[in-house]
Every structure is written in structure tokens, then in C-alpha cells.
């Protein structure tokens, strides 16, 4: 089975590729370059094409599948049009799939399920990354607020932190929010 993964994000394509690599008897092709996309797909002659929903070239590819005579085997969207649940899952995950007509559903379904799982895993990786970045930023803010208190009120560091924590507990807010407020107030008062 020949599977083409079309994704302008090389990182995501790699995540999908890695997941599909565990399947037996599958040859996987990754296409990240937009130029010459249609010609490249013609060369690969895939049985299954996976493409992320955010790719602007989807309309180009659909036109090619639906109307071009270059590929001698017709390609249909999704494995089984009656399988709404599978389609909904793939749209939720952000992947579209095109499958050569006549392939046995029991061969296709595991591939699509795997692709959906890998897309979801990639989204989780991204949100974890964003969260980690957010946490770093929060720690920076707390450090900065501590320094402001240490400088302006002559507190030692543990006390500065205790003050921030106390304010957070009293107001029912997160310590990072209090730190942001301290920084903003400090800036407004002419500090830097």
C-alpha cells in the first residue's frame, strides 16, 4: 500500500510518518513542497493520500482527483462515505483522506485511525509546548515581581515570594496574575 502524506509542516508530517511506519507492507511518501504537488502525486501513484485540513492546496488536489485523467485510478474522498463517524473523527483531528476506489475497507480503516491518532497526538504536543512556554513566561514574571519587591521594599527573596503568595491567596488569584499586577503597577509608577 502506497501512502502519501501531504503536509506543509515538516514536523507534523514526521510525526504522522513515524506513526504509520509501524504498519506492515506500507510504503510512505512525505510531500512538504507545494510546487509541483500534482505532478509529484502523479509520480507516487498513491493508494491513500492524507492531507491536513489547513492546507490551501486541498482544492487543487480535489480538482486533480476528481477530474484529471492523469491518474488512471479514480480517487474518492474517505474510505466509505456512509461511515460518518470516521469522517467526523478525521475532521475533528484536522486531516482529510483520499483513497483509491475499490481498496478493501479493512485494509484502509486501521491506517486512517492511526492517522487520526497521530494528528491528535501532534495537536497535543503543540498545546503542551504552548503550555510549557506559558509556564516559563509565568516564572519570569514571578521572578521579576520578586525583584521589584526586594528592591523597593528591601525584602529578602523568601519574604518577597511569601508576600506574593499571600496576596494571591487573599484575593483567590494565581500567583502569576499577582506578579503581573505588581509589574504593571511598577511600570505605571515610573519603574522599569
Amino acid at each position, binding site marked *: 500500500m502506497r501512502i502519501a502524506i501531504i503536509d506543509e509542516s515538516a514536523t507534523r508530517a514526521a510525526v504522522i510518518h513515524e506513526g504509520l511506519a509501524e504498519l506492515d507492507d506500507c510504503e510512505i511518501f512525505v510531500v512538504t513542497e*507545494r*510546487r509541483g504537488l500534482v505532478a509529484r502525486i502523479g509520480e507516487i501513484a498513491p493508494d491513500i493520500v492524507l492531507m491536513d*485540513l*489547513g*492546507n*490551501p*492546496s*486541498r*482544492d*487543487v488536489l*480535489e*480538482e*486533480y482527483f*476528481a*477530474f484529471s485523467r492523469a491518474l488512471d485510478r479514480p480517487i474518492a*474522498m474517505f474510505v466509505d*462515505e456512509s461511515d*460518518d463517524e470516521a*469522517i*467526523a473523527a478525521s*475532521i475533528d483531528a484536522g486531516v*482529510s483522506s483520499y483513497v483509491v476506489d475499490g481498496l478493501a475497507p479493512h485494509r484502509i480503516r486501521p491506517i486512517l485511525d492511526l492517522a487520526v491518532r497521530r494528528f491528535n497526538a501532534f495537536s497535543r504536543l503543540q498545546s503542551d509546548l504552548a503550555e510549557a512556554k506559558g509556564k516559563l513566561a509565568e516564572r519570569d514574571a514571578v521572578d521579576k515581581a520578586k525583584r521589584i519587591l526586594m528592591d523597593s521594599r528591601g525584602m529578602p527573596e523568601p519574604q518577597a515570594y511569601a508576600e506574593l503568595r499571600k496576596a494571591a491567596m487573599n484575593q483567590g488569584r494565581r500567583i502569576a496574575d499577582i506578579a503581573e499586577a505588581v509589574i504593571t503597577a511598577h511600570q505605571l509608577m515610573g519603574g522599569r
Partner: protein
Amino acid sequence: MALELSIGFLPLVDAALPILAHEHGFAEEEGLNLRLVRDMSWATVLDRLLYGHTDAAHMVAPLAIATTLGRGRPAQPLAVPFVLGLNGNAITFRPELAQQLTQPGKLGDPALAGRRLAEIVRGSARKLRFGVVHRYSSHNYMMRYWLAASGIRPDEDVEITTVAPPYCADALEAGEVDAICVGEPWNSVAVERGAGQIVLATAQIWRRGVEKVLALRQPVLEEKREATEALIRALVRAGRHFVDPANWEANAAILSRPAYIDGDPALIQRAIADRLLLQKGGDVVHFADFMFQYREAANFPWVSQAEWLYTQMVRWDGMAYSDQDAEKAARVFRPDVYRGALLGTAEPLPGASSKVEGSLVQRTAVTAQQGAMVMEDNRFFDGVPFDPADLAGYLSRLP
């Protein structure tokens, strides 16, 4: 409880009305919360609509009809209660070709530029390639209408291919296509890069050509009728706001944001103001009604527009004419819903729901259900009117 609707859109200037209805609070004042979902291809906009990620979508008009008729995927009936705008697209050629079609600094004359293009096509050793944004787009039908009326057979003499709007300038620059028909700001992006020169506005091919529509799945429209009517009222207010010159700068700034078009506000403002820079280093020209988003009941879903689109689908999509399909296509446009939403407001409503398209040469007062209505020149460039009473006859007279 507030009504809610989610609307899918592509980053184009003519997605303006839902965006402005949201940003200026017009939807909120109708008791409606809007959630806008930005996508990068019509395929994804349609997928989200069909699988319930969105309730409604900004959509190229022919795609709503193609989806209803089951072209390309299983049929699902869509409903169009509102037209988001007329025209607003242009045809941009590679500069060396453009110079043979028109005078510098001027938009081409569609008949003359068409004749010249036909000569170039006949004399060319290779097939010229034209890019359109989607097979089921008004861009495709306008381009083909112009070519065919100019003596060029679109499927034999040239090649017409699909190019995604953000890549149109690239495709021209790389020589992948000789011309593109696309909406703004993408023609202007190609011009600014020196990759292309605007030769025609699609408004020159059909002065009042239907462009993007608001499409819903028909069962969703029935289920969310109240929210849809609230949306129509909010969109009408957005349309009125959009065409007022006092708001152009602010609206261009809103539309340019990363969450919406993510583009240069100066280029967006030009399109809103019906102004076009035809070639790099040239002067900006004004073409009245380049985009047409509000006046003359531009947003009214005329049944005759749906029927015209159906005739073009028969013409170019390898399908035989059938009365049954024509009827299905006609029913996609829903003037009844539009009227229901606006009855009793100050908004003029036309008396008829269908009209002979392309028959008006000058300002003409027409009968109205409420308010007063005047319509202006709405001709096709070849002067052939479209009478919805005789679709088969119209098709037989076209080249």
C-alpha cells in the same frame, strides 16, 4: 438565551460582512453570538459545514449548487438565504501578455481584449494556462464566459486549472499560469510583486455577477431559522456600513487582522473603495462597482442567479440539462427567508424573486414589496440577456 451561529470563511475581502457584523456588534444587537472559523481552502470550509463544525459558511456561489446536486461528493441540500456580494474579482495576466491586451494604465475592454487574446491563443505554440480558485467558483464561470464569448474554447484551446488564492501571485511569477482570476487582495498582491497586471474586473464581464453567498445545510436553516434571520439583519447592517466611505479605513484595519485576512490594510482598503492598481508603478484607477456588497438589494438571493449558475454548470461540468436539476438548483436560493428576516424593517425588498439577468441598460425603477427600488446597468459584456423562463433556449444560444 442568546442565539449562536458559527460561520466558516476564507481570508478574502468579500468575507467582510460576517466579520463586520461580529466586530461592530450588529449581530450582538440582534441577540446573536457569532463565532468565525477561518480556513484556507473551500474544501475545508465545505467539510466543516457538512460535518457540523460550522452552521453557515462564506462560499463561492456555484459550490452551494454543486453540493446540492452531488457534484464531486454525495449530494447534500444547501440553502442560500443571503448573497454576501457581487463581483469583486479580477483577471490578472503576466505583464508581457497583459501589454498585448490593453493600454497601459487602463482596464481592458472585455470584447477587444478577448479578440486580442483569441489571436494570441491561435498563434501560440503552447496552450495558455489560466488559474481559477475553484472548479465551482464564479471565477471559473466568469473566465469561461469571457473566453467562450471571445471565440476561445476553454477546454480545448487553453487549459484551466485550480490555484489556491494565496498562491496565485507565486504561480504567475513561476510561469505556472499565464493569468489568474481571483478575488482581492490577491490580484493586488501579484501586481505589487510585479508578477502580474490586472486586465479586467469580473464586473466588466457581468456587471452584476453573483459572487459569494452565505450557505447553510438546509436542515440547519430550518432548525436555526430564528438565528439565521437575526444574522441576515446583522449582515444587512454590515453591508450598509461597508459601503460608507467614512468607514473604509477602519474596516480595512479590522479585516487586515491576523484572525481574518491577515494582509496589508492598504490593499484591502483599495478593494473596498473600488480602486485598483493595475500595474506596478502605475496609478490607482477607480472602477465603480468593482465590489458590490449592498446597494440595489445586492444581497437578495435572486432565484434567477441560481438558475444562471446552473446553466453554466451544464455548460462546463459535463452534465446534461434536466428540468429536475434546474429546479433543485433554483431552490438553493431562498428569497423567502431573506424576506422573512427583513419584512417590516426599513430595508427595501424587491417585488419579484426572479428577474431577466443582464437586461437593464440604465437606471430603472422596479416594483418593490417594501421601500423603493432602483436598479442600474446589469448587462453581460456580450449583451446576451439571461431569461430564466427559458434555460434550455439560453443554453442553445451560447457558443
